């Protein structure tokens, strides 16, 4: 679709900006509209240059209306269209919105719930707790949950998201306060959602899905920032729970619908792109607005999904622990999205600008005093939840003023893959991995040994290394490290 010569950047093409930041200048390829920047240390930089993710990053720097630079987080890895771990902001009104820049699992994200009990108190009952979680939280592709929605009720989910779950008794008011966008993404309009998306989503609210999605019971293994931890209600050795999932088949269908439709739209606007998965439309165009309305519906679907799952997790804790220990009730620490395009105001070159910020495999990390934070967190900044690979550590971070200055208020989202799923399957046996995890005291519940093997920790980068880079670069601050004691997967 373009005449620019495609090639994969090498070390020689990079300019080091700071200790943990590298730039691919615009001169690297003639179709770049902005430079591209990568946050990494030496080893993570080698990983980023080891597959096609850096070429994909350069491709995103060609999007019309891009502001400052295309950004890659240290967990960058090869995706399709955008790399996973990419951030691109476009200026409004003429900059573009790209469905492929959000991805198929719209508002895939992570929620952290915290008990008042210690992991030591929970551990005698861990086997039963894990089994309850596996039974109460349906998993697998195409799996249906307890809730089947008629059209009018589904519309309410799509428009209201978290607010719908509160009306239906699945949420507490404080849960929504501690959810990105307070659980309701503005701009949702079901009119722009296809019949197929509805059919796929109708019975999937309250289901975990497959792939790398999971529920994990963790213990708080280390506190780095006592003050922030206290604000978030976290303490050492506490039992906490992470839920990682998104908008299920509904979001996939929304993305599919618009990526297919934009194949012609992109020509209508005379936009040339190096990869058809990057197709886009000017944000303020009819097509761009239609996608944004539909994407917001999928975002609300995902907020509702994680909230219903949180309800199922609370029920599991009660069933397994009530009468045995106190402090099993779970409060919500926060809920973040890591696949989303959002309209935000940022200061660029001293000027306030309205931008469409695409984060694909990247997390919003707003610093202290930012709009959009609940009152009780305004002074410390937004909590950021970074799940590690299975069986390894996860992190709780907070956003900083540095993220506002450098990355449009964004940071990393996880460990980032280094092995293909095919390689993981060939190298790791699911049954053996399960045994190894259980020998380390981690309860494992899964329906698919192949799925378990593909998510083996060896297939991922070292999450601690990723988190160290964003902390040293000043775009997030470490609050706590979590270690798993039970893993529930599809």
């Amino acid at each position: 679709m373009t005449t620019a010569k495609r090639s994969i950047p090498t070390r020689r093409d990079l300019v080091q900006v700071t200790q943990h930041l590298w730039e691919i200048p615009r001169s690297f390829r003639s179709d770049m509209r902005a430079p591209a920047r990568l946050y990494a240390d030496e080893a993570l930089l080698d990983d980023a240059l080891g597959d096609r993710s850096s070429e994909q990053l350069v491709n995103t720097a060609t999007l019309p209306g891009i502001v400052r630079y295309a950004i890659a987080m240290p967990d960058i890895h090869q995706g399709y269209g955008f790399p996973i771990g990419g951030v691109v902001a476009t200026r409004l009104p003429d900059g573009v919105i790209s469905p492929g820049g959000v991805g198929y699992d719209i508002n895939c994200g992570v929620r952290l719930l915290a008990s008042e009990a210690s992991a030591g108190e929970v551990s005698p009952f861990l086997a039963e707790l894990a089994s309850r979680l596996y039974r109460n939280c349906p998993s697998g592709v195409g799996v249906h949950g307890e809730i089947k929605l008629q059209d009018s009720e589904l519309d309410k989910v799509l428009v209201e998201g978290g607010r719908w779950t509160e009306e239906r008794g699945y949420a507490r008011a404080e849960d929504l306060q501690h959810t990105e966008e307070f659980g309701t993404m503005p701009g949702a309009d079901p009119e722009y959602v296809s019949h197929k998306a509805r059919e796929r989503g109708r019975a999937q609210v309250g289901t975990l899905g497959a792939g790398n999605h999971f529920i994990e019971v963790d213990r708080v293994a280390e506190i780095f920032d006592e003050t922030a931890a206290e604000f978030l209600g976290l303490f050492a050795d506490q039992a906490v729970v992470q839920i990682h999932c998104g908008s299920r088949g509904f979001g996939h269908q929304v993305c599919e619908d618009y990526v297919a439709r934009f194949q012609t739209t992109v020509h209508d606007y005379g936009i040339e792109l190096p990869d058809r998965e990057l197709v886009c439309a000017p944000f303020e165009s009819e097509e761009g607005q239609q996608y944004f309305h539909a994407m917001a519906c999928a975002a609300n679907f995902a907020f509702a999904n994680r909230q219903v799952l949180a309800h199922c997790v609370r029920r599991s804790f009660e069933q397994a622990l009530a009468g045995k220990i106190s402090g099993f009730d779970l409060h919500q620490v926060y809920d973040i999205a890591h696949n989303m395009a959002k309209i935000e105001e940022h200061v660029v070159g001293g000027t306030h600008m309205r931008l469409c910020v695409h984060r694909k495999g990247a997390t919003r990390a707003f610093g202290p005093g930012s709009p959009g934070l609940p009152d009780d967190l305004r002074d410390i900044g937004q909590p950021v939840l970074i799940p590690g690979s299975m069986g390894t550590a996860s992190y709780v971070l907070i956003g900083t003023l540095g993220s506002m200055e450098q990355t449009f208020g964004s940071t990393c989202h996880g460990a980032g893959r280094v092995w293909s799923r095919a390689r993981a399957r060939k190298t790791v046996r699911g049954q053996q991995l399960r045994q190894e995890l259980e020998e380390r005291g981690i309860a494992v519940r899964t329906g698919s040994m192949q799925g378990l093997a593909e998510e083996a920790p060896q297939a991922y980068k070292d999450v601690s290394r990723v988190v160290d880079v964003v902390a040293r670069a000043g775009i997030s601050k470490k609050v706590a490290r979590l270690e798993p004691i039970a893993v529930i997967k599809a």
Partner: protein
Amino acid sequence: MRGIAIQHFKEIEHTADWAFRACGRDLAQLYANAARGLFALQGSTGSSETSLAREVAVSGVDRETLLVNWLNELLYLQETQRETYSCFEILEISETQLRARVRGRPHRPEGKLIKAVTFHDLEVRQSEEGWEVAIVVDV
């Protein structure tokens, strides 16, 4: 399904997701083989035992869009109808239209299934043997 090396489609390495290459002597065979590859990656054995048939019709503005729409339609049917397919007969095909009869059986999804077929670097191209394409899917 591990290390698929069957004649008309083959899994290829991709860091985050799955990818495979399909080929065919003409477009009809290419599109049928792409569908076989899609289901083989998900663990279908290509069994000839089928108990149901569906007719599928899709359109697209070009060969690539037609291919993505065809494969995504099969994934949509797999998920919503809870079926798996192993036999793909292309009844009519042009650059922009495809009509096919697919045969399969009821299937309760277990574990990993493909969620979507992407346009990433997608190009249906002519080869010495006929046609080929490399497809990246989201899992």
